């Protein structure tokens, strides 16, 4: 979706302000939100792509006004309501007022901690040979899906070079809308700064993205 989350190349957000000796969490509730997202994901309530899609789907003025973990919280709550794990009435009451829905992997308990401390595996068996190989010239498709995609706007329509084949992987565009894993080949594709940003660009800049095969065409 062409949301405000797709920020690459936008102007006007100002300087990067780094905070010295930043704590992991600034408020206790931030940790609670992060833990709830991790736990409910691990319990099977949603996949990581769906959770990203819900955060992106926040209204642009809300997305921009919220802190990071506020976005996580709002995305989580919306998602759990939509998936039927909680109800709007529960939220209004601040207590459970409706029956629970079974979780794919059951309640998240202390015994599940180690499971989430290892990154998930996203690689999958390919169903067809890779269409591109390192060195190939490719163009990012001019496509504007209304749902979740990992093809940023700033590369669409631009030509680059395949640098690396990263294997076959779960396709976020499908997984986010619960249309299955639909595995696709994944490549690192490098673009010249001048190709992306025009003649005024710093000529020493190169930008790469990791692009799924359906995002690319031969150039």
């Amino acid at each position, binding site marked *: 979706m062409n949301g405000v*989350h*797709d*920020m*690459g*190349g936008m*102007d006007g*957000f100002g300087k*990067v302000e*780094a*905070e010295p000796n*930043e704590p*992991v*969490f600034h408020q*206790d509730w931030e*940790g*609670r*939100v992060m*833990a*709830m997202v991790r*736990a*409910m994901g691990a*319990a099977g*309530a949603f996949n990581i792509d769906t959770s990203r899609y819900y955060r*992106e789907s926040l209204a642009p003025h809300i997305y921009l006004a919220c802190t*990071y973990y*506020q976005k996580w*919280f709002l995305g989580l709550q919306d998602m*759990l309501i939509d998936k039927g*794990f*909680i109800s709007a009435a529960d*939220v209004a009451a*601040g207590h*459970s007022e409706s029956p*629970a829905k079974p979780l794919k992997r059951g*309640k*998240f308990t202390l015994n*599940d*901690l180690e499971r989430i*401390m*290892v*990154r998930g*595996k*996203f690689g999958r068996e390919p169903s067809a040979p890779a269409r591109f190989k390192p060195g190939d010239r490719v163009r990012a498709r001019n496509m504007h899906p209304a749902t979740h995609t*990992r*093809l*940023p706007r*700033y590369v669409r329509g631009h030509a680059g070079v395949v640098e690396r084949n*990263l294997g076959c*992987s779960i396709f*976020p565009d499908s997984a986010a809308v619960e249309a299955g894993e639909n595995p696709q080949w994944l490549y*690192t594709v*490098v673009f010249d700064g001048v190709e992306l940003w025009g003649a005024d660009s*710093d000529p*020493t*800049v*190169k*930008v*790469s993205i*990791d*692009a799924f095969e359906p995002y690319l065409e031969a150039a």
Partner: protein
Amino acid sequence: MTEHHHQHHHDHSELSETELRVRALETILTEKGYVEPAALDAIIQAYETRIGPHNGARVVAKAWSDPAFKRLLLEDATKAVGTLGHVSRVGDHLVAVENTPQRHNMVVCTLCSCYPWEMLGLPPVWYKAAPYRSRAVKDPRGVLADFGITLPKETEIRVWDSTAETRFLVLPMRPAGTDGWSEQQLAELVTRDSMIGTGFPKTPGVP
């Protein structure tokens, strides 16, 4: 009411709306039997203590000291890190990219906040915020200037936008004046930002 609440009995007037809503959601998830509050505590503790830039620093220091490890790291970072039993497990999709006098690497996630948690911990606020996400791909030298970093004009800058599940670790250049240093000493020089590409390692002898 828990002990914690007794100690902060004035909390209610001061609780932010967000905090109240977060507490309510946790109550709902707990009452429905989806999560155990103690398990949430454990997740928070693990992210506060077990992961962090110290993990990445060990990997970098090892690469600076051991040419065979460095080769493996650049070829297959997941496999290389897997040989260090003491570093947390990184999953299948880690890529290490080497800074050289000719090329400087910088990592961003323009779409959200993808970051090598197992190597660097949870990302800092600036990494997840609009100024960095918007400008890193278009004006990386300007972003580096915000960090007080200047590179030679002719140095190539390669920006890695983390748009899939690959996670990138920058291998910074080993500082001069560190001949004969142990891996442990070297690891002390490796900063979080030097592994994102928005900083350099510390200079020996400079606090």
